[in-house]
């Protein structure tokens, strides 16, 4: 099984983009050979999808990458270091990369994990996404679906 997993907070403005992409893929019936799910802020639930019964996982999430708002990148955990300085993990202010490292530390066989990171314009309290991300929403959906359908072989 392959998974597209949306992470974020629905009421967190651009932090909701991963959830919205997963929701759109599922609602439009675009799941072909993979499943699109949302885990909201329960980032530790990601661990449940990181085992040897899973072929690949694409995590769609907001990512501060130093790009222009709305730009997106596909990368793997080894491509980046996290600037989040969290001495502890919380179920909310969590670090998805930290959760992936946690899963690796368990010593279990891991599926291929990839991120589709989207540079936010605005993160805060509120419903909806910024115009910069809204304008490119279809791109995110198409890129996510293409990636999952190609078994994770599409790189940008």
């Amino acid at each position: 099984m392959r998974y597209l997993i949306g992470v974020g907070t629905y009421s967190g403005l651009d932090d909701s983009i991963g959830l919205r992409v997963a929701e759109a893929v599922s609602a439009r019936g675009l799941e072909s050979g993979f499943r699109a799910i949302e885990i909201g802020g329960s980032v530790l639930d990601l661990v449940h999808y990181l085992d040897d019964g899973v072929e690949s996982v694409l995590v769609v999430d907001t990512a501060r990458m130093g790009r222009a708002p709305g730009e997106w990148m596909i990368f793997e955990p080894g491509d980046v270091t996290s600037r989040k300085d969290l001495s502890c993990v919380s179920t909310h202010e969590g670090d998805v990369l930290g959760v992936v490292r946690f899963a690796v530390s368990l010593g279990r066989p891991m599926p291929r994990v990839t991120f589709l990171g989207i540079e936010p314009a605005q993160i805060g309290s509120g419903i909806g996404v910024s115009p910069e991300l809204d304008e490119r929403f279809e791109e995110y959906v198409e890129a996510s679906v293409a990636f999952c359908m190609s078994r994770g072989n599409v790189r940008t």
Partner: protein
Amino acid sequence: MLRDLNVDIHHLTRVEGHGNIRVNVKDGVVEQCEWQVPEAPRFFESMLRGRHYSEVARITSRICGICSVGHTLASVKATESALGIVVTEQTKKLRTLLKHAENFDSHVLHIYVLVAPDLLGAPSVFPLVATHGEVVARALRLKRLGHEWGSLIAGRTTHPTTVVPGGFTRLPSAKDLAGMRDRLVESVPDLLATLETITALAPMIPAFDRPTEYMALSSAEEYALYDGFVQTVLPDGDRACYAVADYRSCTNEYVVPQSTAKYTRNRSDSYAVGALARFNVNHDQLHPEAKRVAASLGMQPYVTNPYMNSVAQVVEIVHSAYEGLRLIDELLAEGIAEESLVQPAGYGSGASAVEVPRGILFHEYAYDRDGMCTNANCIIPTNQNHANIQADFDVLLPHLLATPASEEQVGRAFEMLVRAYDPCISCSTHHLDVEFVR
């Protein structure tokens, strides 16, 4: 004994959302001792106005990514109350089974991931992989069971899809329920091992008693999670009951300068909700296995140590596992019947209450004749606990100052106290923040 103390914990970790602990003592005089919630309101109730009843639960489930099952259930129940919808016994049974799944899942997360590191002297669950690998593996097995149990009934545990006003859009098959039953039976060794772990760690739980008022959903039929009336008990055993429709008369929301979140009070200046409150109010209705676990942990009502809320969660994990088995057995014996959604029979106002992991949750809506929401009110458990946390702080500080505790130990005691309540202040952000290295 400390005469000068400064504890300033900004954004306490391992709780859900943002809260601060500020304690300042100078020359033996307490200048500040506060639990502060600085988060901005999110106005979900306003967002619901003008929405059709079929959309409301979808929106309120987004209030929280952890308790989204509870918000969904409270939402559909309030809508059904307002629109005169009476759901079937099968629907009630499946929703109760789902409620157990959410509490099981959330309690496992809280005990193993958020509280255990305190008791094991670790900063988080991550380093425990190396030092307590089997405990972490067990935690993940139980967590996964709770997650998949909820997904089986609700479509998914985060933002459920199948639970709607009037019933379910999709029902689990008998085969899937039987499979979940097998997995619950297989989890018993992990539950027993959890009990052993907590028993071994119990001496690390601070000794601190502060009697308060406890509030929980109650029912004549069972240890209430999904339905019932509101009941509170004072430490002397005096009980009072309230209809869910009168929830405002027992919550009495008010505001304080130190917090953006509302406080509540009832017969006392503050009251507690959550696993310990449920235990104190409804102990007699726990499953016999859960009662046995409680007794083995030395718990008899009324337990007045707020740190014991986490231990009460262990008792409830056992309760939910066995109640889950009972409900699945009943559903399988009766057969899963395909049912149409029950349609509205009127319009007006309606309130509901369910027990989510952190305590009693109230939703209330009003709808017009077209089924559009005209008013909404939600009172979440964590807000009901804020005044009680502050009252604990006021007693805990002099208690700690009278001991040889260091400043670091005092700070940790306050942190552990807040974590014991398992607060879910709001959903904050989860974005990645990365630097490319290749």
